[in-house]
């Protein structure tokens, strides 16, 4: 079973216990204004151009005949600094698992494992399930926005060791406005998660002007604590102010504007 990922990063220190490698699945159903992985949004491979270090030599603008460059209208192979890359590659689940299992010793020594993140891993459910099965008995965390059909969510619950679920906003209407989708499915899956015995962590990105008020955060805590299930903790994640740079790299407009300090309540 093949899937599309845009990175596999070793030694990610914020994605669960111990030494971990995080695999980033490409494609996401949400469009959060503040998203810090814009290259994970589209399920298609796309061109990423680092601006930092560019010599402006225009070598990438010269016509070329490499098949891999054709979709992008730029030559990826001509850059003397290697600043052009394609985000997104197709991989076979078994092959990817085989690579990750080479790092098993590190995972075992530290109580770590593999974290599957994105993008949204649940957008590629069959690939995800196969990868999870292949990785057994390595500790597996699925990091998800929770926006998936409940049947799919249920399939994942039975195959991993912990879920890291994002809750961005408790109100449906506001959720629509800042992520493009209702939060109903997400909350339904939260309840499913709470009813299962699976350990889970709730992650709340603190986005200035969007959800960083006491009232909203208390609502989120309330949502979670009504039926805690096997909740390990609620993580409040600081907003990443460097997200904007990546938008330039993938040529997507960055629409989120951080309120000026005196606008904050």
């Amino acid at each position, binding site marked *: 079973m093949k899937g599309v990922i845009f990175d*596999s*990063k*070793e*030694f*990610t*220190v*914020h994605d669960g*216990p*111990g*030494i971990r*490698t995080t695999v980033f699945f490409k494609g996401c159903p949400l469009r959060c204004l503040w998203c810090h992985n814009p290259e994970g949004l589209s399920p298609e491979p796309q061109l990423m151009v680092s601006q930092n270090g560019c010599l402006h030599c225009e*070598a990438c603008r010269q016509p070329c005949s490499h098949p891999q460059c054709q979709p992008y209208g730029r030559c990826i*192979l*001509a*850059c*003397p600094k*290697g600043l052009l890359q394609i985000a997104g590659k197709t991989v076979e689940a078994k092959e990817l698992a085989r690579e990750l299992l*080479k*790092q098993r*010793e*590190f995972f075992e*020594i*530290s109580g*770590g494992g593999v974290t599957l993140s994105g993008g949204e891993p649940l957008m590629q459910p069959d690939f995800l399930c196969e990868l999870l099965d292949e990785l057994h008995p390595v500790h597996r965390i699925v990091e998800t926005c929770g926006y998936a059909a409940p049947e799919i969510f249920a399939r994942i619950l039975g195959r991993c060791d912990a879920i890291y679920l994002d809750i961005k906003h408790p109100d449906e209407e506001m959720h629509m406005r800042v992520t493009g989708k209702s939060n109903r499915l997400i909350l339904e899956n939260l309840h499913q998660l709470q009813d299962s015995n699976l350990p889970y962590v709730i992650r709340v990105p603190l986005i200035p002007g969007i959800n960083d008020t006491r009232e909203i955060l208390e609502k989120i805590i309330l949502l979670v604590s009504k039926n805690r299930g096997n909740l390990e903790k609620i993580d409040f994640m600081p907003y990443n102010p460097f997200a904007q740079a990546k938008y330039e790299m993938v040529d997507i407009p960055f629409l989120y504007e951080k309120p000026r300090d005196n606008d904050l309540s």
Partner: protein
Amino acid sequence: MYRRKLDRCLWKEFDEKGLTPIERTTERLKAMLKEEKPVLLPNERIAYLRTVSELPQIYSDSEKERVFGKNVWGVGNVCPDYGSTISVGLEYQRNRCMEKMKTADEKQKLFLRCVVDSIDAVLDLAARYREEARRVGNDTVASLLEQVPAKGARTFHEALQFLRILHFTLWCEGENHNCIGRFDQFMYPYWEKDIQEGRLTEEEAFSLLEEFFTTFNRDHDLYPGVQQGDNGQSMMLGGCDREGRPAFNSLSSACLKASRELLMIDPKINLRVDGRTPADIYMQGTLLTKAGLGFPQYANDDVVIDGLVKLGYSLEDARDYTVAACWEFIIPRWGMEIPNIDALNYPKAVEACVEKLETYASFDELMADVKINMQKQADSLIEEANKTQIMPAPFISIMMDDCIERAADISEGSRYNNYGLHGVGLSTAVDALTSIRLHIFEDKDVTASEMKKAVQEDFARNPELLHLLRYETPKFGDAEEIPDQIACELLLGFVDCLKGKKNNRGGIYRPGTGSAMYYMWFGEEMEATPGGRRRGEPLETNYAPALYVRNKGPLSVIQSFTKPDLEKAINGGPLTMEFHDTVFRNEDGIRKVASLVQAFVQKGGHQMQLNSVNRDILLDAQAHPENHQNLIVRVWGWSAYFVQLDKKYQDHVIARQEFKW
């Protein structure tokens, strides 16, 4: 402000008097110490401050060459046995010399006389320091100097003052890269006894320890080295004792903590660990890494001790190992080794093959040629190194070998007299060979003449090939089979080059994985390499991925770098990795880095040093050095204030790959 120069031209005086080499060393030490003017800083509890800034020459160039030939070394990079002398005192050592003198021959008498004269000069300065301490009302120091260095130390405080005097004197005698050795072992009895008997509380003992650590930073701008900071004041902590029992103790912990609190580049901390070391010790080490000093540097007993034993060291001595200035494994007291005598240049051995790249029918044929080139290099390095002579150093001899008993200067040799050769640019060479093997012999997507031409032109007319080689071809550190296998083969090739080679002092040649400053020197003068390195780009420091490479991540790097048979190339030279400082932001991150070091050790790595860095801060420090006076980085085997480095060494640190979250 306290400093001045010695106003005498010693070598002329010595030439006129026709002094022998050992007398010259002694007379200079006497002149230096005599010229020293005792200075006590307010409230200090451990005295001695250099006031004579320069060490004058004791030979004219021609006289030096006449006596020693062209390859002359001073004693340095050795680790004296401070502990024994601290426990018995210099008068006792002086008496031993006088006793020995009765039965000695003329040559021995000269040596013993020089030792006695040196001791007298040290005692004289100590007496003047004592008077000065009394004069300024510092009774603490005055009463310490009533006891030491004449008599053996009875307390931790006396032992620290004694060690300060010994170490201070080595610099004045002209030794270079004076190591501190296994401080937590030889000082532990004093530390433990004072605390147990209530003479010092733990806080008081720790406060003295911190003050003692600062003494290493008082005069270090006067110590010789390639760059400021390259002074060899290395301290080794932990490990096992001579019987193999775990030796990490409360003083080891205190040293890690003191270093972390003081944030100074000296002493440079090393930590011995092995497969059984508890996670807590790695945590203590990693807390120090977080402090951003570039240490501790870890050494793995499981690999180092076995490796040294296989080279012929006795098991007990091997268990007592420490490091010389940077990372060269040496034995305290029993080694008069030169572990950094020269360096083999791996990429150079490949470069010669690139010139006739079209002529090889197979990759194996080319590899065989690379090894022949390495052998030629090694042979010529050995030929040169075998002309080495060492200048005498009678004062340090008190603490080396059984020099007094044998009435012989340490420069004449000891139990271990080996030379060490660094192996520089392994990864750059591996990447070059991987490119050749994959593209020319396996995938055949590049022809030999195309590769050769592009490399010779520094890829100026073939940017696509540069891209392919530099960014798209597997590298050492990617945990890929081909480069890893080539690395294993090259390293063993180097080992084979030195097998059975004897040096001119009865020792052998030890192959290593360090680079010293050669990474800069070799890189600057070398053409482009087939791994995609451009002309003049520096090589990697020590045992690390090539400078321009962006590997998959730290796990892959450790996987690759623990594959070669490091036990066989145990001269020293660490895997060097840089982590972004945000990795250490919380305890969880610190624990993960600690686990990573532990994994490296369990996978059979020999030595490792970590830098906590932040490229943005380094760049800002280049632009605004005035705002970053205390910023410290690890350079090749030592740490330095970033703003005091030459720009090319700064740039090298900035160019290394930085592992983020």
